[in-house]
């Protein structure tokens, strides 16, 4: 496949997801309502507990990261979910495209949507709770956001693989697992407060390292030697594993007939 066709296939999926998103009122609900509720709840709780501005920033960074990842990973999962819901999956896999086009195209829309969420939440955090998002500088902010997007990509592709493996009844299970894993990444607390065996799991999650690196600019010394490099390396490994799992799930679905069952 030529580079032109590669980009065109990714663009086709990007455009499709963007059109679907722009016509669904619930998509806007996902985009705004829950993230805003999250930041307001956590911000008000930090005020009630009389946390220092640094401590409040610590939990707000976690809350904003969770919202960004949730919005982005949901969009990546739409690579398969939209077609599963509309029972048009077979047309997608009848065309000469690979899963990379589906996941990358959806990821692009996910990054745009979650960037909007990020801007809204940081403005809200600054206005209501004096949260200074730019204190770490643009480079650290960019790295942190990229870490969130990479984590979302891994999670979204893993959800796609689970749904293709077990059918759409696996949706709830897939997201429950994903949210559990994310909470273990130290969204609201440092990994050091976790029991040893849970800390081991937390250290295996890329987001743990991106949060750690970003929070170090708010006066919380890093718990890891090279958090950004470790987070990136883990993201690449998990990304490759998730991609392989999705590919294997599609091949299995072609073998078992699940691909047809999830279609017309």
């Amino acid at each position, binding site marked *: 496949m030529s580079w032109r066709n590669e980009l065109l296939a990714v663009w086709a999926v990007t455009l499709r997801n963007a059109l679907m998103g722009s016509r669904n009122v619930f998509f806007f609900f996902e985009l705004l309502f829950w993230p805003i509720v999250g930041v307001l709840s956590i911000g008000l709780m930090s005020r009630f507990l009389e946390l220092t501005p640094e401590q409040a920033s610590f939990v707000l960074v976690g809350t904003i990261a969770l919202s960004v990842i949730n919005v982005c990973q949901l969009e990546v999962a739409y690579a398969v979910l939209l077609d599963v819901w*509309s029972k*048009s999956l077979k*047309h997608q896999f009848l065309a*000469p495209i690979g899963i990379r086009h589906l996941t990358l195209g959806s990821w692009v829309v996910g990054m745009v949507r979650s960037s909007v969420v990020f801007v809204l939440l940081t403005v809200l955090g600054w206005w209501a709770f004096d949260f200074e998002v730019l204190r770490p500088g643009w480079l650290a902010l960019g790295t942190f956001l990229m870490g969130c997007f990479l984590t979302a990509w891994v999670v979204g592709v893993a959800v796609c693989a689970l749904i293709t493996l077990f059918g759409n009844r696996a949706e709830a299970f897939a997201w429950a697992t994903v949210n559990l894993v994310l909470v273990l990444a130290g969204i609201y607390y440092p990994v050091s407060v976790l029991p040893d065996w849970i800390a081991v799991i937390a250290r295996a999650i890329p987001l743990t390292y991106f949060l750690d690196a970003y929070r170090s600019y708010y006066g919380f010394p890093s718990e890891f030697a090279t958090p950004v490099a470790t987070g990136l390396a883990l993201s690449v490994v998990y990304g490759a594993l998730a991609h392989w799992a999705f590919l294997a799930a599609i091949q299995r679905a072609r073998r078992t007939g699940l*691909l047809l069952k999830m279609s017309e």
Partner: protein
Amino acid sequence: MVSSNRMLAIDARDVEKTFRSGWLRRRETHALRGVSLAVERGSIFGLLGPNGAGKTTLLSILATLLTPDRGQVLVLGHDVVREASVLRRRLNMASGRPSFLWSLRVGEIIAFYGRLYGLSGARLRRRVETLIELCELQPYRRVPYSDLSTGLKQRVALAKSLVNEPELLFLDEPTLGLDPDVSVRVREHIAKLRREQGITIVLTTHYMREADQLCDEIAFIKAGRILSRGTPGELKRRIRLGEVIALRLDPRRVTWLAEAPGVLRCVEVDGWVECTVDEAEKRLPELLRALHNDGVVIRNVQVREPELEEVFVELAK
């Protein structure tokens, strides 16, 4: 041998497919049991059979949506398992129960799939316009898919299936649930595609008349096996259903007709008495003579081959 293979759009040999389900996947459904099939390029090939016969399974394997358990399948000279990605550029599919993303509009659906097949810019716009015109979808270009009627959805599916100008087109029950006038137009489209663009078409259908009108060749499939194949005429002769002599007369006067020599069965249909006979050329004069001698007034006589439907019923037994 090589040159004859080049003329084949599909060359499938001993294809087997078993679906497993239930607890520990112990329940087995043998969907295809050693199916072999050859379809010539540029022809319209019909797959007929009752529900659950294996038609859609076979079609899905040929279209690379399903992998066979055993057997070799070459489509347009490519192996459907090893060379699936090359093959997918050259084929497409539409089904009688189409489904696409609900809030995309007609033009957007065709354009989305066009981009997946490498079309862009002016070429994509031209292709979308051509297909919208071909499938008479102009007034519905901006209508969301979920707001379309069944017939319009099927036309969108047909338009989508032509977006890559396929050499081989699979149509899974293309006129299912359509009004008769729309069905006629869809059949005309199908015939035109082969006539004007030389596309090889493989279609599954329940409608015998459709298969009879459209197909150069037909295969009857039941319980995962091809029971018989040939041109519609060949099949009718091969099954030896006999020819039908239809007589318009007073049926109360001819109760003895079913017992006459060479008459295999006799039924009354819409004011006609239809006698299936072993050999119409020989039996027609005999019957007419006997009826004349009995003083029966014959108002009309027709001789015809059996309907494909009768062949289907016979094979499906």
